[in-house]
């Protein structure tokens, strides 16, 4: 065994300790960080405690156990644990997490009433846990497991289904603050409704809001069905810009991944800066997978943009590089990630990608490549990779990454060309993108009618249209599929003030208008919005 092999324990200890000033191995440090997090630990700990009948941990109790290890304490503890084991066996209430509830069968036989205690815990990292203990007394009925789960969630979050005869209590901090009784004919809500905002896309989903109506995070559980789309979603009580962000974040690419009847959990994370993070996860069924759509607080202007907006803000000390590459026909890039069923917001397939690169001394961009991952039975993902070097250390930068790739994915690499954009153009464009991010801008081909074609614009959404007008370009605001007001001519410079967020289909590329617009906008950066027809 070489000295290096002998030292490995010590080096890893240093990396795990992460002591400042202590020079350790970067790879070991990265590994220590990688393995250093275990999401859901506290919930798991509480769950084990609960299942073994151990009381909640308290600061003084550990000392008691250390010092007062008396026979009496042991006897009391063992008796408590024994009782906790025995009680469920004698048909006591079981404590189930929401996830367990969705995964385990809940059968209610004939002539029996079953009580379940279901603990809902929202354990998004970095935020205090909120636990709702829900006691459900069920009577026999024609309730399948999935139906029960869905209806129960609906019931918990405000809508009691008449399909579930029984009693439902919601406790928080030991105090009952919501009780619903359903005698099979009518529903009586004994206590005031929870302060919850309703989002009801799939029959059983809500978003928790705090009293100030600032949504910090939400957990939405729903049952997917084919053809579900946003038109069936109602958002009540959310700030309008968040509704918009959520709406825009939900494209067919997300919904299309679900199979009928699958239970889907999608989490919406909101920071106080109103950046929006969404995580969709299919919790059961053949397409069990996770898709995370996320955006950056630092990349998204507060309250004006959300997930789905491709908004590149140039932070101080960073520069923007367009990457030139191409994808096969039918592929589009989004956030540098391609997807066969690309959603509503995409970068142009063969247009340039923009990458944010730190502007540090010694940081050198070497090459870029587009890596396409393929694996059987799944969509293909492509990720733009930048290879850079800073001093002696080589770095690989994922321009923007998509969902976690499965290990069996194989990579197909394509070279991409690096081209540095003129700084003055990039700077002004990125600022303008943010300024104009409130409403989408549609660019119509020259041969089209000034009015958008039927079905071109999504209902209930206004848009600014850019059309050829008097030898130049005109802009008009449209809403509800009709144009209001006159076209106002705009100069090329003014066009730069707009987000090019239009319905430019692949076939329309190469047209004179497209080239003119591209030229007017500067670096040829287009935000594409898929036609919602």
């Amino acid at each position, binding site marked *: *065994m*070489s000295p*290096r*092999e*002998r030292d*490995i*324990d010590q080096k*890893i*200890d240093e990396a*795990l300790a992460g002591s400042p000033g202590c020079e350790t191995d970067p*790879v*070991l440090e*990265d*590994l*220590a*960080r*990688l*393995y*250093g*997090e*275990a*999401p*859901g*630990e506290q*919930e*798991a700990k509480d*769950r*084990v405690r609960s*299942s*073994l009948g*151990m009381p909640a*941990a308290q600061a003084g109790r*550990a000392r008691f*156990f*250390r010092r007062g*290890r008396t026979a009496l304490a*042991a006897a009391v*503890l063992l008796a408590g*644990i024994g009782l906790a084991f025995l009680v469920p066996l004698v048909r006591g209430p079981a404590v189930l997490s929401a*996830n367990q509830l969705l*995964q385990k069968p809940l059968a209610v036989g004939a002539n029996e009433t079953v009580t379940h205690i279901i603990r809902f815990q929202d354990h*998004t*990292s*970095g935020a205090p846990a909120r636990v709702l203990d829900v006691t459900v007394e069920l009577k026999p009925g024609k309730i399948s497991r999935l139906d029960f789960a869905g209806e129960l969630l609906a019931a918990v979050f405000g809508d009691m289904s008449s399909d579930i005869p029984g009693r439902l209590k919601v406790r928080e901090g030991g105090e009952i603050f919501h009780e619903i009784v359903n005698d099979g004919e009518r529903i009586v809500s004994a206590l005031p409704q929870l302060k919850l905002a309703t989002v009801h896309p799939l029959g059983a989903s809500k978003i928790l809001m705090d009293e100030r109506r600032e949504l910090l995070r939400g957990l939405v559980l729903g049952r997917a069905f084919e053809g579900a789309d946003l038109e069936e979603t109602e958002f009540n009580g959310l700030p309008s810009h968040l509704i918009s962000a959520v709406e825009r974040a939900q494209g067919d690419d997300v919904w299309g991944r679900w199979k009928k009847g699958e239970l889907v959990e999608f989490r919406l*994370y909101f*920071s106080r800066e109103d950046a929006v993070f969404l*995580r969709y996860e299919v919790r059961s069924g053949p397409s069990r997978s996770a898709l995370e759509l*996320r955006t*950056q*607080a*630092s990349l998204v202007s507060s309250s004006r943009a959300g997930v789905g907006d491709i908004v590149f803000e140039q*932070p101080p000390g960073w520069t923007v590089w367009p990457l030139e590459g191409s994808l096969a026909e039918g592929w589009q890039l989004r956030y540098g990630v391609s997807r066969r069923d690309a959603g509503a917001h995409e970068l142009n397939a063969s247009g340039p990608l923009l990458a944010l690169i730190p502007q540090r001394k010694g940081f050198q961009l070497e090459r870029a490549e587009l890596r396409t991952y393929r694996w059987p039975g799944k969509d293909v993902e492509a990720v733009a990779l930048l290879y850079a070097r800073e001093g002696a250390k080589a770095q*690989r*930068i*994922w321009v923007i*990454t998509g969902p*976690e*790739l*499965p*290990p069996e994915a194989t990579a197909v690499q394509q070279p991409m060309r690096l081209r540095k954009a003129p700084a003055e153009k990039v700077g002004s464009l990125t600022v303008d993108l943010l300024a104009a991010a409130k409403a989408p801008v549609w660019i119509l081909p020259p041969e089209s009618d000034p009015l958008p074609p039927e079905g071109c614009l999504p209902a209930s959404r206004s848009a600014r249209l850019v059309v050829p007008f008097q030898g130049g370009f005109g802009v008009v605001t449209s809403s509800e599929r009709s144009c209001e007001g006159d076209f106002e001519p705009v100069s090329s410079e003014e066009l730069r003030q707009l987000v090019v967020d239009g319905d430019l289909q692949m076939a329309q590329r190469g047209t004179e208008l497209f080239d003119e617009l591209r030229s007017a906008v500067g670096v040829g950066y287009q935000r594409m919005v898929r036609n919602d027809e």
Partner: protein
Amino acid sequence: MAWAAPSFEEAYEAHFHCVFRYLSSRTANEQDAQDVAAEVFSRAYQHWSGFRADSSVRTWLFSIARNTLTSHYRRRRHHEPLGPHHTTVASHEAEFLRQEERVELLAVVHCLPDDQQELLALRFAGGLRCREIAEVVGKTEAAVKMALHRTVEKLRKEYEA
């Protein structure tokens, strides 16, 4: 003074964190990690009276964890990618990039053979020293050190390529 065996509660408090981190790194998702953790400590509790002090509580718990994981894999109908799973959300630029690096490192780790992934998990997530790992996996300490060194070097080569 005679050595007093720790109570189950003490052992639970002392070692849950490491065991759960290890399980978290060896299961496909958070829910599985929680399920297996519950099973591990349930088994440990059931056999607590039979625990003999000829090994440390820590390595004893990790042995149970390994066995429970094996049973868990066996029960699963299809194999899912294992490895540390993170559900945290990037809140700013630096964190975002750091997370991307993690994803990349994770991909490299996933390409390692399972026994090497296991070794990394025991050492980095479980925090076991090589001597303890040797006890858990039934090898000599020297063999574990050598294997760990080779694993890290292999990973370094892939990661920095």
